[in-house]
């Protein structure tokens, strides 16, 4: 009985993984083909594999600087989001105060605005501040959707930690900052891992704001990619190669936070 359940579970997982990986595999084969091969023949794997598309990306500064720019503002954004969200999430999970529920929900409403509409106001705001075409501008703009998300995710995990742990620590003579960093944060590692990954991910793939707020010095990779549409048609192979390379940094991030996500928290340790 238990064995059969195990088998049907593995089968389901295998099917889903196939469904998840196949489009990415297709992108990989496209990135190893020339445009003529992509558009003319159907083949399960490249007949004449070529690395030309990747060579273009790694030798052209317009391409590889895009990756560096994206990484810079995404890193700033993720760190800032977590730094402001952690204390706020703690406040929401532990205390009642005037307007707490309204502020909590209001935070999330900032994710509900169609971004296309805000382009012009954002452009005006950041031009006035003299922040146009800087990494900081994009990092700050992305706070709008990442901070609420981080607060919501972290609050969920913090509420799962029994309040007795806080009280015991205060009785033992811990100050709030010391308790927060040395006892509380390790307990919600899983939540921090998930929140960090989602902040990274949403900031990494966001196109409209990042493109509007930058022109040269901070141009992100997602904006560079739109260049593959030219007068001679679409450069499919180059776009696929760039797509494969955009997956890599995120995969590295999730590789590092995987232990935090997988571990959860063990009550016995405190």
């Amino acid at each position: 009985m238990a064995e059969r359940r195990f088998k049907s579970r593995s089968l389901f997982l295998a099917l889903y993984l196939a469904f998840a990986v196949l489009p990415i595999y297709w992108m990989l084969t496209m990135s190893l083909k020339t445009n003529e091969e992509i558009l003319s023949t159907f083949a399960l794997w490249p007949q004449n594999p070529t690395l030309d598309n990747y060579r273009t990306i790694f030798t052209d500064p317009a391409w590889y600087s895009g990756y560096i720019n994206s990484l810079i503002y995404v890193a700033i954004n993720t760190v800032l989001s977590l730094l402001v969200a952690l204390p706020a999430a703690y406040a929401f999970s532990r205390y009642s105060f005037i307007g707490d529920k309204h502020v909590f929900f209001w935070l999330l409403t900032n994710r509900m605005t169609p971004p296309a509409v805000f382009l012009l106001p954002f452009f005006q705001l950041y031009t006035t501040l003299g922040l146009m075409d800087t990494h900081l501008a994009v990092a700050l703009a992305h706070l709008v959707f990442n901070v609420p998300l981080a607060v919501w995710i972290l609050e969920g995990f913090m509420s799962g930690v029994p309040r007795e742990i806080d009280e015991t620590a205060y009785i033992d003579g811990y100050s709030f900052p010391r308790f927060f960093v040395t006892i509380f944060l390790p307990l919600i590692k899983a939540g921090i891992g998930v929140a960090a990954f989602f902040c990274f991910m949403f900031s990494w793939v966001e196109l409209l704001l990042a493109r509007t707020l930058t022109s040269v010095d901070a141009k992100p990779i997602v904006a560079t990619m739109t260049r593959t549409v030219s007068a001679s048609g679409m450069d499919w192979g180059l776009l696929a190669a760039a797509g494969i390379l955009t997956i890599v940094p995120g995969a590295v991030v999730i590789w590092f936070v995987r232990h935090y996500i997988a571990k959860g928290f063990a009550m016995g340790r405190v």
Partner: protein
Amino acid sequence: MKPVDQKAWLLVLPVVLCVAFSAVLPLMTIVNYSVQDIISPDQRVFVGTEWFRSVLRDNDLHEALLRQLVFSLAVLLVEIPLGIALALSMPATGWRASAVLVTVALSLLIPWNVVGTIWQIYGRTDIGLLGVTLTTLGVDYNYTGSSVDAWVTVLVMDVWHWTPLVALLCYAGLRAIPDAYYQAARIDGASRLAVFRYIQLPKLRGVLMIAVLLRFMDSFMIYTEPFVLTGGGPGNATTFLSQYLTQKAVGQFDLGPAAAFSLVYFLIILLLCFVLYNWMQRVGTGERHDG
């Protein structure tokens, strides 16, 4: 009950400042545009609620809204159960857990315009794996010609793209359930279903709430992927709200009506999320009483 402490506001203040800086000012600008006819940057006429009235009477908008509601509902009905099932079947420890975790997350990391482009090729019946496979199996599939095929393709693409978000949230939520709960259930001789219903599901309430709200509002604002994949067609089959809005705002350079439209759009999402949020909170607390 949580203790009342107004000093907690000090912890929340940085967040409010950060978000208000980038959200409230632009929102005010939009409100300002929505009541004016902007002929040129220096020439504006106050028109009151005229734009709002014309938006609410717009028939194309009603149709796009209906399509949008059906689509978002389908997204939730597929992605939430699938994500929970996936989280439950993902291994918890060992190298396999890491490998599966990374594989599942891959689709989230692809820029949205690339997602659309890849599926555009992937679904083609002459050179795409999906299209060729379906045709070989004898399915009459053509996402550029048939409205049903186009709609289903956009849905499948969204499921492929975003189910991992639900799965990762649930997976982390499941890992946060202390072992003691499972041991107690084993002693009681609880069935697999009972463990899910009375231990895992209530403990997942928090993450599920986030997952449902996120998937709802993001699918309600879906733009890039269907735009690249189908361009809204065939006909209007996959023209969802934000695409209609962008046609209006960019196509006609009409800031006033576009601003009014986006405010109405925002209020619809806000209202639906609010209803969803309150409903889930009630369901959740009801569960806690009988669970």
